[in-house]
Each structure stands twice: as C-alpha cells, then as structure tokens.
C-alpha cells in the first residue's frame, strides 16, 4: 500500500475486512491532519491491483461554513465597531441609544430602511458565500485564490440598484412618513405606519433569495466546490421585478410626513407659568388712565385761598405723582398705603375747610371760605375716585395671572411644527389623544392649521405649520383635554397622520429639554438625523 510521500505517517498495521467479493472495508488508514492525496493498491498474494487515487479532506462543510460565517461576521463587525466607537450618541427618544442601529436607519425619517436591509443582507450573503469558496479552494483543496464568482455581481447589482433607486426617488419625491418616534422592525414593511404590500413582497423575496443562495453555496462540499452555484436567471429576474415593484410603490405613493422639530410657545407647563414661570405675560396695572384723569381734574380746579384746600389739592397731586412714579411691586405696595393716607389727609382738610366756612358768618369772608370748602371737597372726592381707580386697575391686572394660578388656566398655546410633507388636513394628536380642528383658532375663516411655509414641491403640504389653541374659545371637555396635555411638567408625544394614512410622530416635553436631551450623532448623521425627531422650544 502506497500512502503517498509522507512515510512518517504510515502506521505499521492497516486492518482490512472483506465484506464481500465486491467490498473491502479498511480501518486505521493514516491521514495527514490537513488531508491530502491517498494512493491505494490492494493485492492478493503477489498480484497487486491497479493504483487508485483518493483525495482526503480534513474539513467538512460544517466547519468551513462556520469559518465563513465567522469571517463574514468579523467583517460586518468593523462598521458596527466604528459606529459604536463614536463618542457622540444618537438618541431619538429618552433612554433609547440607537447609534448601533444607524446602519439601518433612514436618517431623514429615523425609520428602518428596507433597501438598506436588502443591500446588507445580500452583501452578507455574498461575503459568506465567497468566504466559503475561498476557504474551500485555498485551504481545503490547496488551490489558487478563486476568482469572483459570476453570480455575485448580479445580486449586488440588484440590491445596490434598489438602494440607489430608493434614494433617488426619496430625493425627488420626498421621503416616506416617519411613523412612530423610535424605529421599529415594522418599518421594513410599512410606510409612515401604513403596511405597504410591495415592501412586504420585497422583504420576503430578499429573505428567500439570501437564504437560498447561502444554502446553495454550502450545498457543495469544501473538497469539491469549484465555483458558487449560479443563481437561476428567472429568480434573479423575479428579484429584480420585486425591487422594481418596491421602487414603483415608492414612486406612486405620496411622500409621507416627517416631523423634525416641535416648538410649544409658551414652553412651560401651566403650573410653572402660574407660579412664576418665565414665559407668561406679565402686565403691570395700567394706571395711566387714572393718572391722566386725576391730573386733568386737578388742572381744572380753582386756586385755593387757604391752607385746608391747598393741602387737599396737594394730596391729590401727590397721589397722581406717586402713582406715575410707581415702577416695582414695592412701589405699588407703597402707593396703596400712601393712597389711604393721602385720602385721609384730603378728607380731613375738606372737613376742616367746611368747618371753617360754617364758623364764619360774615358774607364777604364766608364766600372765599365756601369756595375753598367746595374745592377741598372736590379734591378729596377726586382723590377717592383716583384711589378707587388704582384699586380697580390693580384688581384687573391681577385677575389675569390669578386666573392662570387658581382658576381655569387659559394660556394660549402655539404649536409650531417643522418638517416635510406636513398635511394641514392631517389628523393631529398629542399623547395618542386626538387634537381636533375645533380646538384650533380660526385661520382664513376655518379652524385649521396655519401653513406658514408650504412645501416647495407640493404646496398643499407644509414645511412649517402652526397650530394655535386658545382655551378661551374651547368648550369644557376640550379645555379639560388641553389642561391634561399642558398642565404639568413631563414628556409628551405629538403625531400627524396625513390623509393617506402615513404618520409622523415626535416627542416633546414641557418645559423643553426635560424628557429629551439634545441629540447629536456622527458628523454625517448630525447634518441630517440629529435634528430629526427632536423637541425644541422657541
């Protein structure tokens, strides 16, 4: 028996068992660790048979496939490692770190991209299959580096073409709807939350094609494989049709809404505004009408003859001047006390001027005293009126913030939406509760969103849309709903569903920045993805 050139591996004894006249079973045949060529001759007596040549392989399909898988996985892990090593994070909603998933994310909509998935799956299948072929040919068969199989360019072309085509259509027509806040696996078969049959078909065909290709690749043992199996033309054709269907669906479907930013003005919740938040309207009491009236009345008064009338008029002047000088809360508090004092002074002088008049009985002397008493009475009455007007102005000015504090909170809110393809006829909701158009203020005769900036390519859509809700105009149930949304600090979610059912959702918080930290991403993504699905405040 010739065991080839490696004589050292030849054992002393090979055990043979004749099973029949046609079959001989041999055991303990020495085989090199890495396999090799085995020459076998069998002899009976001194008559040896002709030499038979066998190739022995040390690695079977399982181990080579496993190696191929490891190689493919290692290669795939390189971009994942690069993404993971980014110092910047990519967060869409609070606590949901997404940078490892960026490979699959459509940066514009923050949804999983089917065309990217298809491209990666086929790339992985191609990598795996070629690794299997490479290991088999080079390390198992000891052959030269195999050429790139003829079937690979076809599948790469289909997947790359789909991916590029999808991007071109998106650029030309607009993206699909961004759907729920965070990406979800259902994004692969939905567009803006609506199931798209052509996406389902493409996903299924992709999974089938990738699986079939890989199974076919490992269907040939490593020792005998010389090339990857060709993909049947009709299957390739079918996959191409599926991709075309996917791209056609993208082309035919209207662009979906994408919400990039939501601003609430005022951004503080009701209770913060009520208790001294930063954005509520603060109006000091308007004392000007009262001051002007008092000064005009004072100017029309006669000149006093004696001290009492002079003092009463001076008190009136002092009151008007003090009110005009009041700027701060402390000034106002001091004014209120001062008015009580000045009023008392004027009333006292009016009474004393009258007493002086009543005590004088000589008509010539009584006449100026009467004029003075009347003047002092007038001044005191004007001061009382002025004091009353100040009290009234203060009560009026206090009513508005007090309503915000303790009464029904009537804070007008303006919700500004920035994004693309925002339909002013879409369904609006906050925290999954509908925001009906009847809650919006009237714009051009209708209760509807205000399209501030229309979409250039589709003027019926908006890039900037404003929703103004004035609780003053709302019925009780709508007010209750409004308070539910804006009463206290916390995270919320806004969604817009266009008439074709495509939906965009975006989280926001009151005040801004509580529920969600500003998002940053890698340099490329930060240009596109980072601003998307972020709440911000004006």
């Amino acid at each position: 028996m010739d065991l080839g050139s490696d004589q050292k591996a030849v054992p002393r004894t090979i055990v043979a068992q004749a099973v029949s006249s046609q079959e001989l079973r041999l055991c303990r045949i020495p085989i090199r660790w890495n396999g090799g060529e085995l020459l076998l001759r069998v002899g009976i007596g001194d008559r040896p048979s002709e030499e038979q040549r066998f190739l022995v392989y040390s690695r079977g399909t399982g181990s080579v496939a496993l190696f191929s898988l490891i190689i493919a996985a290692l290669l795939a892990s390189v971009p994942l490692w690069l993404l993971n090593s980014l110092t910047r994070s990519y967060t869409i909603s609070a606590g949901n770190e997404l940078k490892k998933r960026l490979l699959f994310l459509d940066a514009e909509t923050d949804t999983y991209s089917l065309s990217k998935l298809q491209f990666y799956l086929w790339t992985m299948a191609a990598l795996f299959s070629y690794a299997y072929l490479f290991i088999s040919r080079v390390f198992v068969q000891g052959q030269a580096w195999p050429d790139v199989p003829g079937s690979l360019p076809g599948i790469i072309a289909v997947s790359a073409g789909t991916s590029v085509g999808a991007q071109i259509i998106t650029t030309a027509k607009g993206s699909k709807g961004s759907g729920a806040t965070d990406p979800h696996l259902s994004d692969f078969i939905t567009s803006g939350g609506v199931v798209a049959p052509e996406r389902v078909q493409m996903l299924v065909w992709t999974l089938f094609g990738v699986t079939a290709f890989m199974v076919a690749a490992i269907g040939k043992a490593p020792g005998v494989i010389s090339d990857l199996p060709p993909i049947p033309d009709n299957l390739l054709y079918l996959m191409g049709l599926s991709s075309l269907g996917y791209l056609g669906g993208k082309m035919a479907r209207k662009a979906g809404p994408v919400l990039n930013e939501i601003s609430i003005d005022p951004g503080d919740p009701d209770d913060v505004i009520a208790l001294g938040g930063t954005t509520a309207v603060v109006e000091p009491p308007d004392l000007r009408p009262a001051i002007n009236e008092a000064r005009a009345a004072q100017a029309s008064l006669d000149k006093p003859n004696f001290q009492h009338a002079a003092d009463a008029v001076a008190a009136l002047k002092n009151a008007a001047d003090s009110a005009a000088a009041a700027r701060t809360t402390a000034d106002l508090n001091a004014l209120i006390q001062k008015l009580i004092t000045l009023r008392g002074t004027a009333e006292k002088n009016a009474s004393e001027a009258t007493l002086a008049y009543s005590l004088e009985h000589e008509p010539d002397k009584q006449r100026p005293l009467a004029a003075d008493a009347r003047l002092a009475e007038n001044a005191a009455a004007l001061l009382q009126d002025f004091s009353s007007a100040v009290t009234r102005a203060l009560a009026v000015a206090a009513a508005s913030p007090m309503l915000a504090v303790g009464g029904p909170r009537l804070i007008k809110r303006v919700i500004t939406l920035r994004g693309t393809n925002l339909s002013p006829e879409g369904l609006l909701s906050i925290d999954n509760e509908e925001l009906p158009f009847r809650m919006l203020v009237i714009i051009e005769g209708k209760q509807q969103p205000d399209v501030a900036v229309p979409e250039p390519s589709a003027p019926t859509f908006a890039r900037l849309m404003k929703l103004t809700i004035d609780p003053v105009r709302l019925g009780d149930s709508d007010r209750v709903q409004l308070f539910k949304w804006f009463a206290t600090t916390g995270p919320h979610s806004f969604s817009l569903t266009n008439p074709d059912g495509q939906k965009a959702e975006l989280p926001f918080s009151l005040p801004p920045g509580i529920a969600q930290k500003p998002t940053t991403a890698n340099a490329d993504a930060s240009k596109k993805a980072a601003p998307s699905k972020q709440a911000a405040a004006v």
Partner: protein
Amino acid sequence: MNEQQQNIARAIVNVFETGRIRGNYSAVAVLKGDSGHLSYGRSQSTLGSGSLLGLLEAYCAQPDAACAADIKPFLESVRQKDIALDTNEAFKKLLKVAGADPVMQATQDKYFDDHYLAPACRASEALGITDALGQTVVYDSHVQGGWSKLQSRMGPVIGGDSRRWITSYVQTRADWLQHLKEPLPSTVYRMDTFEALIKSDNWDLKLPLTAHGVQITETALRAATPPAAGAHRTLILLTPYMQGEDVRALQTAFADKGLPIGKPDGFYGPFTAQLVKEWQQVHGIDETGVGPLTWKSLGL
C-alpha cells in the same frame, strides 16, 4: 352667615376690588394676556371664562332690562368668545350704560352670589368654617381666585378649630400672593385686612370695621343698598363720599337757589352736606341726610 353678614362680606370684597362698598357695576376692562379677555361688572365676569355670557343672558332674560334689546345682538359673539369684542367700543360702551340699570345691578348681585358667594359658603361649611369672617375669607378667595389650589395645600380643619385654620390660611395666602407674579403681590392688602380683623377678634363681622382704608358702617351699608324703583336714595356723608346723578341733581338745585355750591360734581362731601344742613335749618326739616323731606323741599 346671616343676611347682614353677607352684605358685609360683599362690601369687603367690593372694597378690595373697586375701593368702594357698593362696587362698580359698570366696570369694563380688558384683562391683559390671554386669560380672560373682556371683563365686566362688580366681580369681573369674563368673556374667556364664559361668565360674561351667563351674566348677559341672565340680564337679557329680565323683562324690564333697559339695555336687553341692544345687548342681545352681541350675545352670539359672546357665546363664540369672539375676542374682537375686546376692542369693540360700542359693545363696551353699552355694557357701561347697562351697569347703571338697576336691573343689571340686581342681576349682577344675584349672578355673582350664585357663582361666588354661594359656592364659598358651601365650601366653608364643608370644611366646618362657620364664622362670618372665615366664610368671607373663603368668599374673597373665590372672587380673587386660587381657593382650590391653596385649600388643597392646607388640608382639613383639625379638631374643629376653624379659626385656627382660617388664621393659618390667611397667612399662607398672604405668603403665596407675595410669591406670585406681579402684580399679585400687591393685592396682599386683602389678607392684611383679614389679619387685622382676626387680630381684633371680629369673627362675626361686627360693624364698624375697616377694609383697605374704607370704613364700613351700618349707615354705609344701608346707603349702598339700591333704592326702590322711582325712589331717591338717602344721601349721607360717608367716606368715600356718595356719588351719583342724584347728588348732581341736588347740587344743581342748590346752585339754582343761589347757594355757594359752585359747579356740580356729583360728590356728596362735607361741604355739600353742610349746605344741606343749612337748607334743612332754614326750611325746618328734621332729617338726617337728604331724605324724602329734603328731596321734596327741593322739588326733586
């Protein structure tokens, strides 16, 4: 609270709101910001809250409401809370005129009692607050606002000691007002008045008492009560002075008769009261203030 105490409670809150015991039924204002928009009446019914609609509907439903026909065309806009009314001068002027109508004044009294005083009394009694002063504090919080918010912070009345609870509530509310937005801290004079009444142990609202520099007396309360239809008020010297068209008529009559009243201004102050006294002496009228005899002697 008995009827007299309710009148005192109303007078106190009127003084807080308008500086006068009687209140200002014609007051029209536009609340700044977005909260209430147009505000009207003695205790500020507002367009935004819907209370203005309730008040005007109640007024227009009165058969003898003098301005009902003029107001009715505006009701739909009020119902729609059309904020254009904030700047509708004709409507605002109409409201001011209506405020002088005794029917409107009575409607306001009833409306504000139903919406503020009655709920305040119910809330007080639910907490076990039975003193007139305590209930007035609660009433004031209903009119000014913020009762629910603060009451929930205070918790229940413990051991039936409602005076202690009210004392604590007044202090808490004063502190709360001080920390709110401007100009709410300046309205703390309301709590100053209540603190003074608590210090003087005037839990039953015995008269006279002083609220925000205005003395409330039996006489002042009576004078603040509207006269019967077709009748004159009795004019007496009060602080603040009584005022109105009846006073102007009196002064005009004096001027016509050569008394040194000068130009009529409609305020019944000490000098006018002195002239009345002299008139009464000359004509042998024994009457306090300007009553029926004096009116008659002047041909009014």
